[in-house]
């Protein structure tokens, strides 16, 4: 067994520098790498390019990095719910590249899987396809999209073991598995870290081979963006 554990978030983020490109898992505030983001805030690394489906809210998630102006460029599919983001974008301080959510997922998966480029129908005929190769397959136009390239990937899982194997919970899975192994170094933080051999090999969502460092995170807030309920009847 190849041991991937590091003892704390500071060791987990060793080597993170300004001007790097980061991949960050999560959808909205669900399944985001809270500990890694908190450490990035402490490190004050700047000029970061962040690839993540969303950009957090004003006071949580990637919003914390935006507030400190650590992000130079945001690559995302949806960036609503964040006033500071909107301000920085409209003022031109923040570079923003919006890409279709499925293309975002597939470009990460392509990076993980050694597929340098693939065709997708998403965005053909829109400004997203400008400057990209278009090609017809089965009577339908498609756009050629490239795999992401990133320095670090920050992943949040539910359980993990020493070997870096990961299991996710509910919809907190989202972009996390596809971003594992898509950057040069993948750092996974988990709610519960267990010894190798504890997890059923059949139930593992992501194999440890895609993870370089793993640690047990602390103080998860797991904030809910839209608390919607129905009355008990």
């Amino acid at each position, binding site marked *: 067994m190849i041991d991937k554990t590091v003892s704390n978030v500071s060791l987990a983020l060793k080597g993170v520098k300004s001007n790097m490109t980061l991949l960050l898992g999560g*959808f*909205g*505030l*669900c*399944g985001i790498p809270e500990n890694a983001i908190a450490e990035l805030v402490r490190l004050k690394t700047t000029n970061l390019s962040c690839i993540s*489906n969303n950009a957090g809210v004003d006071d949580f998630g990637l919003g914390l990095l935006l507030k400190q102006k650590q992000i130079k460029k945001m690559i*995302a*599919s*949806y*960036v*609503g*719910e964040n006033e500071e983001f*909107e301000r920085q*974008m*409209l003022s031109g301080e923040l570079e*923003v590249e*919006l890409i*279709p*959510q*499925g*293309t*975002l*997922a*597939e470009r*990460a*998966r392509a990076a993980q899987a050694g597929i340098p480029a693939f065709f*997708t*129908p*998403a*965005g*053909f*005929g*829109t*400004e*997203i396809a400008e400057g990209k190769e278009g090609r017809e397959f089965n009577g339908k136009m498609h756009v050629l999209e490239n795999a992401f390239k990133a320095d670090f990937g920050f992943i949040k899982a*539910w359980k993990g073991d020493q070997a870096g194997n990961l299991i*996710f*919970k*509910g*919809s*907190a*899975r*989202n*972009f*996390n*598995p*596809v971003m594992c192994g898509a950057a040069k170094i993948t750092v996974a933080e988990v709610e519960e870290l267990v010894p190798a051999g504890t997890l059923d090999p059949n139930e593992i*969502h992501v194999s440890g081979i895609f993870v370089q460092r793993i640690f047990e995170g602390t103080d998860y807030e*797991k*904030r*809910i*963006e*839209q*608390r*919607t*309920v*129905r*009355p*008990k009847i």
Partner: protein
Amino acid sequence: MALDKNGIAQRIAQELKNGYYVNLGIGIPTLVANFIPKEINVEFQSENGVLGMGPFPFEGEEDADLINAGKQTITTLKGASFFDSATSFAMIRGKHVNLTILGAMEVSQTGDIANWKIPGKMVKGMGGAMDLVASAENIIVAMMHTNRTGISKLLKKCSLPLTGVNCVKKIVSELGVLDIGPNGFILRETAPGVSIEEVIQATEGDLILGDEVHEMSF
């Protein structure tokens, strides 16, 4: 009288067929789930990685790890499954999701749709909409026929940045049901109490009357 949001949702619910996997966009489309006929089995897919979505949780039972694409807390039903985002869009791109219902700012008479960006003003992003409209065999748009100042949103050509081209099949607005035909919008049904003339007035794009335009029934 023009339909309200629930009315639009209720009319769209009639388009659902037994065995459909359905992706509901944010806003009016979400309300469609409340009007599914009992004799019909459908499953709702949420692009953040849930199939078999159920209603909102009972108060106190919310789980931060269980949300829909609108970031709302949800529940799951029997037979549900969770998966990653690449798999989720495999379902969408691979045409395994049978029907997509989403909102729009503008739709053109050739089926183009714009719903993600108002240059210089609102740029929230397309989320999964571009994948959904580029892939779905069957796309129904739930939208208001005109904006607040009465200007039509059913146009010859969209003025806003596009989300997808030649993809919308059907529109349900507060005024009626329209298909996209080879020569423009085709009016199929009018909302209760809405005249054909009113729909014509509210539609900037070419509008053709269907063979048997009739009032919606619920």
